[in-house]
């Protein structure tokens, strides 16, 4: 008996392999490299890994004009995948830059000397989750979809909880009862832990839903590959089959969870708040990129015949996300929470593009992701800088005077906030225009109106952040800057790398306003991958 080995297009999987390889190396680094240089070494590995993957992904984009599946129909090698990987790798690179200075764990109170303990593991996890996402965006069947989803999710669960300090002495049963000296840098006892566990439980629930949905779709179509499902549905007239429809519904719910779209969003604010800010920056931008790109592919490739169902579902989900995200953000004081809710509302915007289910919608989605992920990443990075400076969670109150004290970060934050709000300062403006245009072309005027009304509501909190940074005198600030010195072990807050990362985000979001045509061309080529 000969084993029939399938042909593997190693180049097509190149970015994934590079990232996973780098992850292994970083993990080795955690045990082999002395603590003194461990941070530098592991960060360099991560940076190199993301850069190499980025280069490969660009190459793949150029080289994959004709999209096809590889590895026995498990993975798409096409421009949609490649472009998604480019975006993911860029975010990963920026996160690496942020992570070097804002190591998760720096806030540990018990032993400043140990704060670099898990730095290499952090980068390994970052690379691993990046690899998972890079795999996820190219998934061509439901199994690969589920596997890669869990792959990056599990890495993220750990990353969320990485700020946990195993050596902190603690008494009492409830986190809220912990003594002040046992609280970590954010004044939260086990905040990171709570975030990790919440994310894990809700995430697994979502994954279970997705899995069961996949099983049902498989039950209806008899295949797990996306195009196979579409063919089966077409040939057997399965449109409206109970198994299939229930399966799609559960998959929609499972993916909605990953995009943090309402009403599957509930974990988002807590996890974004509790997780180390570097991780939040990574999650808020990269996870959304991966989930939305995959969702668009899955829906248009596997379920084109049930478009009338899922497009309505996503339109409703988008509306609910826009409503809940924006309304809840209005009354928050914690900046990370505001940004978390804002990410929910942006998921709503991108879902508008998805729900249009057209080539225009795909372009809109792809375009939107570029400035969005840059702005989301950049704004969390700036929060990280302020957090480090003050040593307490960043609220609107203690943002006072920030804009004047740190001019560059202030301007960048100002820029991101207006960009988020859809004012023509950055590509967020064009992105919104695009998704709304897609909705209009789909015939959904009501969705356009919902979109503009949501933008109106969102203005209040985005402007509120700008107001907090610039318009309140810093004398109002309760916590004195430098409060973190004792906590973070007196690390000088030079943060050049953070500035570079924020600067890059700034350039991307500004550039995307002017370079719409090239970006749209890229997105157009990428969206050719679909039968639209």
């Amino acid at each position, binding site marked *: 008996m000969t084993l029939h080995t399938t042909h593997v297009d190693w180049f097509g999987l190149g970015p994934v392999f590079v990232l996973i390889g780098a992850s292994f190396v970083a993990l080795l680094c955690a045990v082999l490299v002395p603590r003194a240089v461990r941070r530098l070494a592991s960060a360099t590995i991560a940076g190199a890994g993301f850069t190499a993957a980025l280069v490969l992904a660009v190459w793949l984009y150029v080289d994959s004009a004709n999209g096809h599946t590889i590895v026995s129909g498990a993975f798409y090698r096409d421009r949609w995948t490649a472009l998604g990987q480019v975006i993911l790798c860029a975010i990963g690179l920026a996160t690496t830059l942020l992570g070097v200075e804002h190591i998760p764990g720096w806030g540990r109170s018990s032993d400043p000397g140990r704060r670099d303990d898990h730095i290499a593991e952090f980068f390994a996890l970052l690379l691993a989750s990046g690899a998972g996402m890079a795999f996820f965006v190219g998934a061509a069947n439901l199994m690969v979809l589920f596997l890669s989803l869990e792959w990056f999710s599990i890495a993220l669960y750990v990353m969320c909880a990485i700020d946990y300090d195993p050596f902190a002495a603690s008494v009492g049963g409830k986190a809220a009862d912990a003594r002040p000296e046992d609280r970590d840098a954010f004044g939260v006892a086990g905040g990171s832990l709570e975030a990790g566990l919440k994310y894990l439980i809700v995430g697994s629930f979502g994954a279970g839903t997705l899995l069961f949905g996949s099983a049902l779709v498989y039950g209806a179509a008899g295949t797990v590959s996306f195009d196979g499902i579409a063919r089966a549905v077409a040939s057997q007239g399965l449109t409206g089959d109970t198994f299939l429809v229930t399966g799609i519904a559960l998959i929609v719910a499972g993916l909605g969870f990953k995009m943090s779209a309402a009403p599957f969003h509930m974990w988002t604010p*807590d996890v974004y708040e509790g997780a180390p800010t570097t991780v939040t920056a990574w999650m808020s931008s990269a996870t959304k990129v991966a989930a939305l790109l995959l969702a668009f592919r899955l829906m248009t490739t596997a379920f084109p015949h049930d478009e009338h*169902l899922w497009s309505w579902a996503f339109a409703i989900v988008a509306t609910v996300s826009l409503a809940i995200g924006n309304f809840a953000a209005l009354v*928050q004081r914690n900046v990370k929470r505001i940004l978390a809710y804002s990410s929910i509302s942006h998921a709503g915007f991108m879902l508008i593009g998805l729900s249009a289910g057209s080539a225009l919608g795909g372009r809109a989605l792809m375009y939107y992701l570029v400035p969005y992920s840059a702005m989301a990443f950049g704004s969390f990075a700036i929060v990280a800088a302020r957090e480090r400076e003050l040593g307490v969670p960043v609220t609107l109150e203690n943002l006072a005077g920030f804009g004047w004290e740190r001019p560059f970060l202030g301007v960048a934050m100002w820029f991101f906030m207006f960009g988020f709000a859809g004012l023509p300062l950055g590509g967020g403006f064009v992105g919104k225009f695009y998704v709304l245009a897609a909705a209009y072309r789909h015939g959904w005027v009501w969705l356009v109106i919902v979109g503009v009304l949501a933008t109106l509501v969102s203005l209040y909190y985005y402007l509120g952040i700008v107001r907090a940074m610039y318009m309140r005198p810093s004398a109002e600030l309760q916590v004195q800057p430098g409060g973190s010195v004792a906590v973070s072990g007196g690390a000088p807050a030079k943060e050049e790398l953070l500035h570079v990362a924020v600067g890059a985000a700034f350039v991307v979001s500004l550039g995307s306003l002017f370079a719409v045509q090239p970006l749209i061309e890229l997105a157009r080529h990428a969206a050719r991958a679909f039968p639209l």
Partner: protein
Amino acid sequence: MTGGAWLCLLAPLGGTSLITLCGTRIPRVAAAWIATTSVFVAFGGAVWAFVSLRSQNGHRGEFTTAWTWLESGNFHAGLQLFVDPLSTVMMLIVSGVGGLIVLYSIGYMDGDDEERRYFAYISFFVFSMLLLVEGGNLLLLLAGWGLVGLSSYLLIGFWHERPSAVEAAKKAFVMNAFGDATMALAFFILIAHTHSLSFVSGFGVGLSPTAVNLVALGLLGGAAAKSAQIPLQTWLPDAMEGPTPVSALIHAATMVTAGVYLIARTHFIFEQARTVELIAAGTGALTLLVAGLIALVQVDIKRVIAYSTMSQIGYMFLGAGVGAYSSGMFHLMTHAFFKALLFMTAGLAIHALAGEQDIRNMRGLGRLMPFTKWCFLAGALALVGIPPFSGFFSKDSIVASTAALGTWYGWIFWVCGIAGAFLTGLYTFRLWFLVFPGEPSPFVREHHHKHHGREGAWTMLVPVGVLAVLATVGGWLQWSPQWHPFSDWLEPAARTLAVAAPTNTQEYYTSVATVLAGLAGIAVAWAIYSERKLAIPAAPFWRRTLEHKFWFDELYDAVFYKPTAAFAAALRREFEEPVVLQTGPDLGRTTLETGGFVRRIQTGLLRTYVLFLAAGAAGVVLAFLIAK
């Protein structure tokens, strides 16, 4: 000819600009002389224009356009002057009398610490007035019309620390703005129908009867406001808050008579709207009586003269309204002489008494100020219309024109005119007997002081003397029954209507009647105020009514100002603040409350989160199963 017109117009503007731009860099007296010179240069220009116009044969009237001032679609209005007999007469009066009064101001304003501002304003006024009379289309006329209102505002409120002066200035401006608005509306009708506001070629011809009546009414509104005719008369007495030369120039000699000029200038229109023209005449008749009555009880020397001005303009309106444009214009001219004279002599008295204006304190001033006394007497006699003083010639022909109408309303007008002459005699000589004859009162003795050993500076006395002569002989220019060069000169511009051309008989008996009525008035005044032979009739109601000026101020306050102010305040209280300003914040608050509600869903409990996820998934499944 047109050069003279432009010189006339621009010289005072140059004066204003020079004074404004130099500011405090020039001494006060220099500002005064710049203004005076500029106005006399303007007079020179007017004479030039007059002389060259006279030497023209045939068609007299020339347009000159500097550039197109306003242009839109097929509507054009040039920066255009019109030199014709009517405008040259007005130019001569304005710049001539104006020059004398500005000269007088040098002495009168001497020592005021904002003299420069005064002279800048007054030359600006002369410019505006000249723009009004020279403007070659209605738009420029309206521009001048508004600018004289502005300079009147500035000059009434010249002593701006006095709240009463500021209030008076605002009142004058706002009432005139009302007149401007009605005129503008009339112009809109003209533009809508004829696309033109130029005086060229019988404008306003071919309008429908309704339109032409409305246009005429609009113009009449402007004229009444500017000339302080009922019902827009209340600002004029208050305007006496300004310096006395201002009262003489603006509120006696020139600006307030602009309404008469307007009627004469636009007589084409008024003749098509004969009813409105007769309303103008009726307004004049009513005003001349009412103002004459009110003047009887005033105690402020300037206010008495102000009411007499209203009354005399009533005569002019009467004349112009019945169609005797040249008689109205003639009275305008003589009135400019004698009324300016009266104001300036009153100014000499006020000046000598350190600002006192109450005639009850002035008894016996004539002994100390003989020159003033005789000049005043000349003016007073001219005002009453006693031959051979100028007022006699001009006023009688107006009253005679009403007789020429021969209709019932013509006779009412005639009676009003005669009655007005009686009232004029009465109030004028009440003033005379109270102020000049007899022994000086203690107040006068205490406060009287001389300037430079004379009754005033020479700059004040010379103009008074010149005007006294003019007030005396100015009327000899025309005696309608026999000798009428003035009417002839104006004929191409404003020919007297045939129905208003009196016969010589009518002229004669009217003259006798008015002179007798005037003399009767003087006699009664003599009896009451000099000899104390007659007691003032005790009619408290009538006295109070007259002292309150027939309650016009109170009425307007109650009908217009207070409701407007109350309405505005109510809008602010009931609508702006609770509705307009609150709607946004209220919506915002509701939104925030919604946010608070959404936030409460986020309990922090895992089970809630999972529940939402499960419920969401179940919801999607259900929806799909139902919709499939």
